[in-house]
């Protein structure tokens, strides 16, 4: 399955939906989308990754990039990550930089 990324910004919440394979060849598409979203200075970013089949190291680097691009005050949620991806994030410490959740509720998240 080819990699796709779409985004929308609603107030201070940005949502990106990722699907397919995120690797060195497709990471640049993700980066462009993040840079586009960052211009609107969101407080919360939710990455919906239910349909993301595979994340190579380049993809993990992009999560780090996302956090650093948006700043430490911006919460980055990774929503619906598959087991293998969660494992990889944990082993490399990226799980400390983002918030791993199964479901995303923007209002509660922003308050919390």
């Amino acid at each position, binding site marked *: 399955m080819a990699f796709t990324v779409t985004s929308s910004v609603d107030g201070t919440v940005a949502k990106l939906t990722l699907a397919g394979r995120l*690797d*060195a*060849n497709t990471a640049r598409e993700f980066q462009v989308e993040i840079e586009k979203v960052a211009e609107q200075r969101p407080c919360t970013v939710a990455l919906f990754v239910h349909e993301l089949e595979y994340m*190579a*190291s*380049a993809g*993990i*680097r992009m999560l*780090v*990039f996302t*956090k*650093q691009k948006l700043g430490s005050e911006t919460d980055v949620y990774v929503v619906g990550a598959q087991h293998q991806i969660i*494992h*990889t994030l*944990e*082993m*490399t*410490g*990226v799980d*400390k*930089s983002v918030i791993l959740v199964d479901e995303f509720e923007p209002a509660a998240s922003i308050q919390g």
Partner: protein
Amino acid sequence: MQTLMLQRVDAYATRTIAGMSVRAGRVFPFGATLVAGGVNFSVFSRHATACTLVLYEKGAAEPFAELPFPDEFRVGDVYAMTVFELDHENLEYGYRMDGPNDPSEGHRFDPSVVLMDPYARQIGGREVWGQTPDWDQAYQHRSQVLQDDFDWEHDRPLELAAEDLVIYEAHVRSFTQHPSSNVRHPGTFAGLREKIPYLKSLGINCLELMPIFEFDEFENSSANPANGQLRYNYWGYSTVGFFAPKAGYAATGPLGMQADELKTLIKDLHRNGIEVMLDVVFNHTAEGDHRGPTISFRGLDNKTYYMLTPEGYYYNFSGCGNTLNCNNPIVRQVVLDCLRYWVSEYHIDGFRFDLAAILGRDPSGVPLANPPLLESLAHDPVLGRTKLVAEAWDAGGLYQVGSFPAYGRWAEWNGKYRDTARKFLKGDMGQVSEMSLRLQGSPDLYYGRGTAASINFLTCHDGFTLRDLVSYNEKHNEANGESNRDGANDNESWNCGAEGATDDRLVESLRLRQMKNAATLLMVSQGIPMILMGDEVGRTKQGNNNTYCHDNELNWFNWWQVEENAELQRFFQKIIAFRHAHPVLRSRDHLRHADWVGSGVPDISWHGTRAWEPDWSALSRVVGLLLGGHHAKGGTVADDDVYVASNMHFEALEFELPRPAEGRQWHVAVNTGVPAPGDAHPCGEEPMLEQQDRCLVGGRSVVVLVGR
């Protein structure tokens, strides 16, 4: 206001070589570095006549491009080229070097061999530990490009006071590979990270990792004639790449994320107050002697990187085939660059240098009075607060314990502490006088350098574990397949009455007591104590004192023993906590044997079975040590008085006690002569001694009192 950013004018290719867009590169830094639009490659060779950059897709047998360096891409002895539009995540690279192949002149150039970059920050080819390599692959250890972009948050090296450290020496794979470890990724950095709570509960605050630079576990691997199992280069004291973490130690090695996994481990250790010290091996490389594989240095510039005999063979001061030419300015720079890199990029707190005496030899092997490398390391700005520890001897007979060129910075593994403490522990005669020196931080060896110059230890990866030290008179290395010829013979061990495993309860009881005695002596000694992984739970290597090649239970930490030997483990926890609680045990400077704060008790004084009358005679096996708490940390902090009575005689003896400072009374902190829980009391809960002027100390026992 929007600022218009001009793109760099050197971010464009100037020509095409082998179909790749390139331009002359930047000579610094050496290695492969990500730059705008491409990767900059830079490599040194003084004696090469030509250099070719070889590019592979990850894991590919054949390169997809070979790019000879044009003459104008060489500056001095450095070949540098920037290659654009590379998929660096899927890239491996190496070099072919042409030049004279004349071993008698020291040159061994061979352009048919693809060479690993000595500055490679990530290395492929051994991503999964123990997975048999594809031996048909010509390029075995494959340079990769690393993006150093880890999110460290606010982490930095901890810079704990050296005298406050309690070091724990561990092997990454051995720590969690045993099935009992119950971690998700056994034998890896990630697995070790899961065990941080254990280390914290034990009380250590410095984790010293046996080599984690990329090495080849298959180096000189062979079937063991004793049992048919494969013998590995298991410990890893043979470096392949000095800038790259061992990929096979990372669960994420196959993803190429070993650097992130290791950094995550270090960040979490720091978060838990634990420093990280690396055991580094600069004395030799994995290329061995003239019969060994050509991996990198030999083919890049043999004459520069190695110490060579006049005939062009390799000096072997390491006992491993070759010797790095560390006091050559080029090699010295490699070492400096390497250590700076690990401190700045991996936040490493300290280094222990394997066979460090070699680093003080000149290119012909003669010991230097003022070795440039050691001086450079001591005064380096990036390493300014990094702990530097020398194993102050080498395999060529140079023994510098107490005389290692220190420049006010270097500490040493104190081999004399180990030998003396072992002899004293087993009741050898004539040891009391020297043991008193070791207990006070070995001023005979390190006066003027402070107590922290002495890394005190009884056991380390080389030799017996603590359990084996009290269980075997002789080494039992048959499992190594060398007919028990390998390994040291002078172990200063005592089996307590039976050789090896026994169901004799008296013998077992004595062994347990001796292990507690050892832990107590270590923790009350001035200097920096070091514990070997697993000693706190009675880890045995079945009497094998040289388990360098075993990927099995002989090396692995058996976590079931935490429960099985809970009494010993709890004793270690308490005695380590005791050390942390009492700054009087952790003086920075050597003690003066005087009451220079007017407390009525000297900073340190010696006693025998009669107070103030130490028995230094050859027949003596007892020593009493009193530390005046008012002198703690140079008199800057308040502490209890601490009295230690060591009786290594086989019979119980009554010790007349010196008085503690005015208004204080003796309380029993430790008594190894009684079973748990009376063997060690939590700090602040020590029962008061019934008779304040005397104390019965059991045979082969140590009593520690606190005066408060």
